[in-house]
């Protein structure tokens, strides 16, 4: 016989890798909204989250955003990463900002996730990405659009390291990612 006895039926684009693919990451119900009103409207349709969940997670997402949003030394650098008009001066107390020297992407919305086994819903803020879409402050989880629901790895709700009170990222720090891919001649590079 000149063929494989068995071929695992590869399911493309499913949770095969997941984002992280750390063995058997738990998946949970998640939803993303631009603001608390959209969340409350969706909660009225029934589902796993309530109006109260919308409110508490939004408050938490705002706080997490203030604490962990990526901070940049210039508006230009911030907009390069997050898009034109997507950044504002840092006004968080104790951040070292306020003098106009630190910029961070504005809160574009938030995600909430169901805790397996019950408990208070998890929250994460999302910020815009240059070129479209949204991401958590760590950049580890991306959502293409808000007002959406689906399954998500529970690790998507892991809080990013605090940036508040830390020196902002310089151009050199930002350049430490994204050094591959610039030379691709076409959309599909394979042959």
């Amino acid at each position, binding site marked *: 016989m*000149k063929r494989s006895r068995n071929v695992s039926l*590869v399911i493309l684009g499913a949770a095969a890798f997941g984002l992280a693919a750390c063995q058997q990451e738990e998946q949970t119900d998640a939803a993303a909204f631009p603001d608390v009103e959209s969340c409350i409207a969706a909660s009225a349709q029934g589902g796993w989250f309530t109006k109260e969940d919308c409110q508490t997670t939004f408050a938490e997402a705002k706080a997490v955003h203030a604490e962990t949003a990526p901070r940049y030394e210039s508006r230009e650098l911030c907009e390069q990463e997050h898009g034109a008009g997507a950044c504002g001066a840092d006004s968080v107390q104790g951040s070292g900002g306020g003098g106009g020297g630190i910029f961070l992407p504005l809160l574009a919305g938030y995600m909430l996730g169901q805790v397996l086994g019950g408990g208070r819903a998890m929250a994460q803020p999302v910020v815009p990405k240059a070129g479209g879409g949204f991401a958590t402050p760590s950049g580890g989880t991306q959502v293409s659009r808000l007002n959406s629901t689906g399954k998500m790895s529970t690790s998507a709700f892991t809080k990013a390291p605090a940036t508040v009170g830390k020196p902002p990222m310089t151009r050199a720090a930002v350049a430490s990612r994204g050094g591959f*891919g610039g030379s691709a001649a076409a959309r599909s590079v394979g042959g």
Partner: protein
Amino acid sequence: MDRIALPERPEWRAKAEELGFTFADMHGEPYWDETSAYAFTLEEVESRIEDPCTELHAMCREAVDAIVADEALMERMGLPRVRWDFIAQSWAEGAPEVYGRFDLAYDGTGPAKLLEYNADTPTSLYESASFQWLWFEDQVTARVLPDGADQFNRIHEALVERFAEIFAPDTDLHFAAMTGAPEDYATVETMAWAAREAGMGAHYTDLESIGISEEGQFTDAEDRVIGTLFKLYPWEDLFADDFAAHLATAQCQFIEPAWKALLSNKAILPVLWQIFPGHPNLLPAFFADDTKGLADAAHLMLAGHVTKPLFSREGASVTITAQGRVLERAANRDYDRHPMIVQAYHPLPVLGGMRPVIGAWVVGQTCVGMGVREDAALITQDLSRFKPHFIEG
């Protein structure tokens, strides 16, 4: 070889959708097409495709050995001089290869002729290894194909074996592709499934998300260090990217290894012809500026010649000329600025109005399977169709 009309599986589109094979139709045209299939005899698969391709890969390894030892040849490969040592070192260290795909012109009578070697970033792995295999199993079950039929397709098993051979159990491997290209992602994911089955930890990262740590190692989107990187992204592009300077020092093992840049390169075609002149599976080939070589070989190119850039994908910037007339010129000219080679024109056979190219898969150093792509045009481009094949019982 024959092209035989067969009934389609009634549910195949639903099945494709369920499996996430979203590009079974592309640009509004079918890409996966099972309204007919290519039939081969066992003898021709073994003696015309399998054994010659295992031999071709061995010849390619000999050619790499010759190139890294010869600056004049290295100069011909169109790769930046500052990366030559890195390439040579990957060869000297014996950095292992995982896979590649020979594209062959085969008309069912004479020997198969090597058109080019996709040795670095071959795609259509999912269609070849998985969906084609499923087609075969389904069609045998449905009695569309006879019990004694077979398929030359050990690709998946061979990949699993290859990963287990190269890496210790539980090694963490990273797999990267450019975002937003489902065909590329399918190949990467198929590869990662094989790695998982071989007992490896397989992690995906978008190529653009790769970072560099303070210690100079590559990191994934979550700042985990990348020890081994399968990258579905050509070496010549990696060499031109901002991170190129880190490639040699990042303590990262690459799949495919850097020496594959010498094979996934049309410059290998004249080099092979130079080392193995007259080999039955090679077409005469020369560098475009080798006027003496071309003049001396005029009698070998009576059917015409094909001009190809050193680096191009999916037929881009290829021109076919015969009797002083352009027969066909690829519309995509993205690679026109690259140095060119000239290869003797070997027309593809025409079956049912279509011209098939055989894609013969090499895993490790052995040819283990095949797939067929066909196109109505003379140059197989990105609108070609993937066709299943079987071996007659």
